[in-house]
């Protein structure tokens, strides 16, 4: 199994059996060859098409087919938008900060975090676009944009963040691209090989290259962390600069950031679990990883619970009528949603991960699932009940305007967006190794080149 071709002699000093075997292990994932994989992709594409149909129906009939009306003008679309954007900040923060802290244990999951960031940054804006009444005028946001508007801030911020995260992901991918380019798992003339060659930019694992790459990665990691916090705060400010009771809160910025990282970490755990199961990566993603990320989830759950409690305690204790209308509403019409999101969503992860005996891979993943569901409900509870209890009580309007109930159009587009999210993830894992190959060679006792990438 030497398989080392002569014209790869340049790479001999880097590649060897272990690395080849690593590639051979990952390579099968890179090809769509299992029945299950194919079926999965077909399911996702179907879901996406359902979403497209919902979108077509909405464009054809107008926004009247959604459940939104003159009082509750923002519904499921905005909730999904905030939710998906939130996932991305977890990826950015985790990838960025773990990189800067140079932790060794996080290597296998970094790639997943980076891909999570980019994919959810692409899906999030799709949902906000669904909420816009005149899609044909979307470009007005750029040519007529007003700087005073939080939506303009959001447009600028998301664009900046997306580009930054793509650059960061790319920087992380370069060494793996190089390895894939040099491996012989793929035919030389295949499109994959060509793509890898282009994307690798002629990188070699030498000190020269590594110095440049390291510097760039450090810069981008720091910027990504800052940008992620700013972008999600801007999103929070879209709500908090209005005067609506329930939104006009000073801690919305930090609250949203914490909730975002929390939900993103939950999704990250789920992604870890899925990939581990499907691609049999038990050797690389161990219980230790789950525990470490789980502890991160625990800390974030505590912060999230703290912010939520602080927010609602202030509203409830003070006697302002608008706040008390909102609290009454939350505890009457939305009681179960409130319990699941703010109690279960905090306590269950705390308990499961807090007790070392309870920590298993499956239980931690379960906690992550609860976290994700709870956070989607939390977003819903932030957006919709406030709009149902405005300053002026809703009067002299038709009864159907009083409450918001989402319609099939909104759910079908949610399904479509989620399917697209999973689809992009799946396709990404087919194209790049889902675990960083480059870093792993150090574990196997192979002498690294001087000044490797850390």
């Amino acid at each position, binding site marked *: 199994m030497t398989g080392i071709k002569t014209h790869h002699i340049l790479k001999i000093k880097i590649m060897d059996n272990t690395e080849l075997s690593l590639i051979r292990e990952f390579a099968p994932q890179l090809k769509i060859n299992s029945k299950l994989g194919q079926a999965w992709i077909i399911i996702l594409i179907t879901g996406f098409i359902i979403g497209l149909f919902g979108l077509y129906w909405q464009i054809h009939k107008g926004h009247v087919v959604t459940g939104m009306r003159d009082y509750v003008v923002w519904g499921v679309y905005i909730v999904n938008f905030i939710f998906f954007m939130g996932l991305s900040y977890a990826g950015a923060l985790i990838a960025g900060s773990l990189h800067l802290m140079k932790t060794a244990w996080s290597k296998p999951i970094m790639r997943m975090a980076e891909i999570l960031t980019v994919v959810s940054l692409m899906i999030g804006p799709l949902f906000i676009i669904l909420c816009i009444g005149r899609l044909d005028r979307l470009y007005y946001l750029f040519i007529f944009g007003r700087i005073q508007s939080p939506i303009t801030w959001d447009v600028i911020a998301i664009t900046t963040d997306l*580009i930054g995260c793509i650059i960061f992901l790319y*920087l992380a991918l370069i060494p793996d691209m190089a390895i894939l380019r040099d491996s012989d798992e793929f035919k030389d003339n295949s499109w994959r090989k060509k793509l890898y060659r282009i994307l690798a930019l002629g990188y070699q694992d030498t000190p*020269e*290259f590594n110095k*440049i790459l390291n510097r760039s990665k450090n*810069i981008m990691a720091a910027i990504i962390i800052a940008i992620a916090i700013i972008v999600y705060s801007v999103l929070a400010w879209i709500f908090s600069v209005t005067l609506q009771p329930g939104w006009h809160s000073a801690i919305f910025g930090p609250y949203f950031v914490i909730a975002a990282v929390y939900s993103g970490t939950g999704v990250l755990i789920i992604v870890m679990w899925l990939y581990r199961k499907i691609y049999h990566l038990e050797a690389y993603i161990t219980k230790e990883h789950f525990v470490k990320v789980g502890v991160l989830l625990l800390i974030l759950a505590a912060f999230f619970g703290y912010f939520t409690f602080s927010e609602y305690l202030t509203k409830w204790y003070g006697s302002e009528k608008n706040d008390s209308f909102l609290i009454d509403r939350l505890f009457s019409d939305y009681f179960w949603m409130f319990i699941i999101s703010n109690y279960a969503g905090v306590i269950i992860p705390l308990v499961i991960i807090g007790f070392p005996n309870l920590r298993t891979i499956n239980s931690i993943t379960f906690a992550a699932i609860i976290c994700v569901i709870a956070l989607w409900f939390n977003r819903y509870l932030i957006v919709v009940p406030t709009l149902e209890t405005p300053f002026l009580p809703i009067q002299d309007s038709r009864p159907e305007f009083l409450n918001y109930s989402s319609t099939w159009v909104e759910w079908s587009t949610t399904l479509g967006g989620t399917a697209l999210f999973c689809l992009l993830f799946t396709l990404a894992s087919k194209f790049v190794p889902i675990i960083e190959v480059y870093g792993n060679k150090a574990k196997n006792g192979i002498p690294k080149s001087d000044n490797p990438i850390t």
Partner: protein
Amino acid sequence: MEKLKFISIGRILVGVFFSILFTLYFVGISYSQNEESKFRTRMSLDFYSNNDKTKTIKATVFTIKDRIRNYAINEKVYFYYGERSDENLLDSATTDNNGIAQLDFPEEFRFLTAEDRTISITAYFDGNDSFTEKSADINFIELEMELLLTQIDGSKTIEVRAYEKGIDDEMIPVKIADISYYVPRYFSDQKIGESDFTVGKSSIKFPDNIAGDTIGNISILARIEDHSIYGNVERSITNFRWGTTQPIEDDKSLMTIEITIPTRALWHTNAPLWMIITLIILLTGVWSHYIYVIFQLKKIHGLGKKNKLSQPAK
């Protein structure tokens, strides 16, 4: 034979009688139906002496149903001096969209007056399919009126002098009349006071809370409204400031509201400067890092090319 004659004459008479009744009945029904289906017209006839000394006579033709006015549009109204006849015809006019038929006369125009200096005008409307015919008349004497502003020892007054022109051009002071004072505003005229006449003179103290326009100009209208003898008389003084050489700031009786339109505001098209500057600083900071990294990538690309060339495959 004579009996027969009587009987036949009697029959004929009875027949005539009943046919007359019959005819009357049907004619009456048909005519009254015509009459009932028409609306009872009302007409108001007014004389106006305007503030540019021109004169106007207005006839408004309308009906009222359920307390709602319905104006007759595009109908001809004839104006006569007194009885309706060709030589008495003054003029005719057509009603506009508001049902008003209007005759305008220049300042020099002299009406035909009777010996006691009254002018009698009658207006006739001949009716149409939905309006009955109507006429109205008016008797009035023309009034000479002038409006003055006086300032004595710092107290400002508006003074009106009104008199009738006698036969020998003497001035006969107005006897009894109420006069109202108005300030013309954008949508309507605002009343600021009223007074009555003593020996042809009337005055009010100029109110001290009247707003002028943006440069402090103000106009005053004085009107005698719906007088039984004089009709409507209006005179005005426009665009004055008290003591024209005085600067506005010293004139405390005229309120001037400053109009300031901000050039930058949160809600304005132009953003506050600090926002623009902050945004530029932030964006430059972030994107400069991006551009730097992209250049680094280019450097890697260049290095890669160099390496490939310098180390040929064996």
